[in-house]
């Protein structure tokens, strides 16, 4: 069952220098209970894409085109009370940087009860009980609901954030760099927790990260973004086993592999292009090792290389 269908989404920002096309025509589907990874370098538009789904864009950002179909509603058109009813109840987000995302002067329990009381017609007692259940679910002692954020360590705060995202039993959770600020051991704990919760609660998730290895461990589907576009999209296993786009190949090669040989990973030279004036043709052409004249003139479409496996490059052909 398709839960979320994003079609040709365009999210732009008005800036002094012109319109910045942060997300420029991306599309994907997400089923109930599926986890999709959105990968790419910083500034490629992955966070903007996710924020567009929840309509949490800053004042100068706007959805310039396309549709976001979430359970039969076009999120790009929903506003006001209707939008508020969906946010956090059906879609919630785990923000980047658990260290700063909690209110330091409010007890964590109260911060989590807030959305429950707002969205559901229950009294405080019930909400409090739910918070305690959520705490045990994410592996925090339920007696700690009266503590303040500073009394929690980084990993524990991230668990609080996860509990908060799950407060209203959403259908879709967006996790923006959920483990970037954490240590490897804590990262492993959090990833394991997210994976378990996802299966247990049949959650759909969008996990945003620049770290492909984190996505490899948690996601069923994987979309690779570059300069506002999805350049490759398929199941996670397929993307790693059979990468098509040179950018995907580069990203995978950039990882040091502790199980493999001891060699310095490759890097992708250069920087992502300016999104106010994106280059003509393929946006990756400036950094691509197999660039040809055609890449600088025409933009490659996202084609289906194998069933369910899409890539946007002039040099990939559909394989049958």
């Amino acid at each position, binding site marked *: 069952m398709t839960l979320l269908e994003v079609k040709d989404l365009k999210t732009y920002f008005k800036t002094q220098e012109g319109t910045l096309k942060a997300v420029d025509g991306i599309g994907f589907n997400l089923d109930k209970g599926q986890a999709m990874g959105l990968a790419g*370098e*910083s500034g490629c538009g992955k966070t903007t894409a996710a924020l567009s789904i929840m309509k949490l864009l800053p004042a100068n950002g706007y959805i310039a085109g396309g549709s976001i179909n979430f359970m039969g509603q076009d999120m790009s058109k929903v506003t006001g009370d209707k939008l508020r009813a969906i946010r956090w109840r059906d879609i919630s987000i785990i923000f980047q940087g658990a260290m700063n995302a909690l209110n330091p002067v409010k007890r964590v329990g109260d911060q989590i009860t807030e959305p429950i009381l707002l969205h559901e017609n229950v009294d405080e007692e019930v909400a409090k009980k739910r918070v305690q259940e959520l705490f045990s679910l994410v592996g925090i002692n339920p007696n700690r609901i009266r503590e303040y954020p500073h009394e929690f*360590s*980084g*990993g*524990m705060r991230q668990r609080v954030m996860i509990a908060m995202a799950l407060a209203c039993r959403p259908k879709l959770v967006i996790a923006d760099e959920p483990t970037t600020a954490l*240590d*490897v*051991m*804590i*990262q*492993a*704990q959090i*990833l*394991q927790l997210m994976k378990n919760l996802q299966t247990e609660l049949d959650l759909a998730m969008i996990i945003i990260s*620049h*770290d*492909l*290895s*984190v996505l*490899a*461990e948690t*996601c069923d589907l994987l979309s690779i973004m570059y300069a506002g576009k999805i350049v490759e999209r398929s199941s*996670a*296993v397929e993307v*790693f*086993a059979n990468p098509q786009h040179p950018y995907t190949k*580069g*990203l*995978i090669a*950039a*990882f*040091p*592999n*502790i*199980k493999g040989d*001891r*060699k*310095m*990973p*490759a*890097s*992708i*030279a250069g*920087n992502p292009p300016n999104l106010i004036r994106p280059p003509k043709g393929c946006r990756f052409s400036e950094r691509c090792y197999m660039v040809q004249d055609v890449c600088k003139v025409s933009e490659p479409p996202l084609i289906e290389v194998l069933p369910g496996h899409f890539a946007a490059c002039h040099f990939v052909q559909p394989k049958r």
Partner: protein
Amino acid sequence: MVKDVVAVRNLEVWFPVRRGFMESLTSKEQMWVKAVDGVTFNIKDREIFCLVGESGCGKTTTGKAILRLVEPTGGTVKYYGPGLSPKLIKEAAADAVSKRKMKKEMAEKDVREGGVEVRYLHKSTMKALRQKMQMIFQDPYESLNPKQSVYDIVAEPLVVNNLGANEAERESRVRKALDDAGLRPPKDFMWRYPHEVSGGQRQRVGIAGALVLEPAFLVADEPVSMLDVSIRSEILKLMLDLRDKKGLTYLFITHDLSVAYVFSDRIGIMYLGKIVELGPTEEVIKGPRHPYTKALISVVPKPDPRMKTDKIILKGERPDPAHIPPGCRFHPRCPFVMDVCRKKEPQPLYVSQEHWVSCWLESGVGPQ
């Protein structure tokens, strides 16, 4: 035999826990946060020595204590590298003896070995020596002053140390440092501000700021952890190049074992203020002996969903360095804990020529 550049022995950095007035009257025992609690290692000439551990294990404090950016409270830090003249060595030894900080025999040993005890160096000597011992900081987004141009940032160490006879000479040194750090051509970058360059270039500016003093020993504190994966290896390759061309020696501090694996020559695994395992990189990663090392290696995310490995996920988080558990400090989280671990602290045991581990499970070739 390859000469040591830095040798650290039983290094301790303890911070006092502040007590209330009444507490000090009732003479309650002074508590310490033992950030670094007896760390011993040496770094050879042109070597990349890597300290790995979770945040709060004391790896950054160790690096800072070597440069005396925090003052060590115990142990010794010897520096043997370039930038020392026989005169300086003798003076430093005499100074330390006259201030009753070092025994005469120890000072004479330093002079014979051609090293200085960094801990007891006079402030002015330390300042001069610090030109040879520099640090690269973790976060290129926060360690650069946003109001200074790249030129000013890189030239600042020269100004502080009163180097360069005139502006023209300073400029040429800045240009060279930028060029060495891979910001080419330097004139394109010199007059930009930090927000006008990319993340990878920022870290290159940080490196140029360290290189401008022509150091011999660099402490690199998580230099790539804030960068995108796609540009990490460029920075690592730059650092390798600099070692080969300029003969640099590195202390590399990271929590990322996979980076340590591809980049370093030897690894020390730190846990709660102590090194628990140390050895050549390949040996430690492919044949870890300490349960903590094994767990750390097992949880490194693999960049391939087809590789499912058994993870040893340790429960809980590291204990507080103000309350270090008795016996082996890892025992509350150790999956193999035995009775002896709770009572006695294990001593380093060599399991091969250069590889040692502190764990009661080991029965190596013999205690050192």
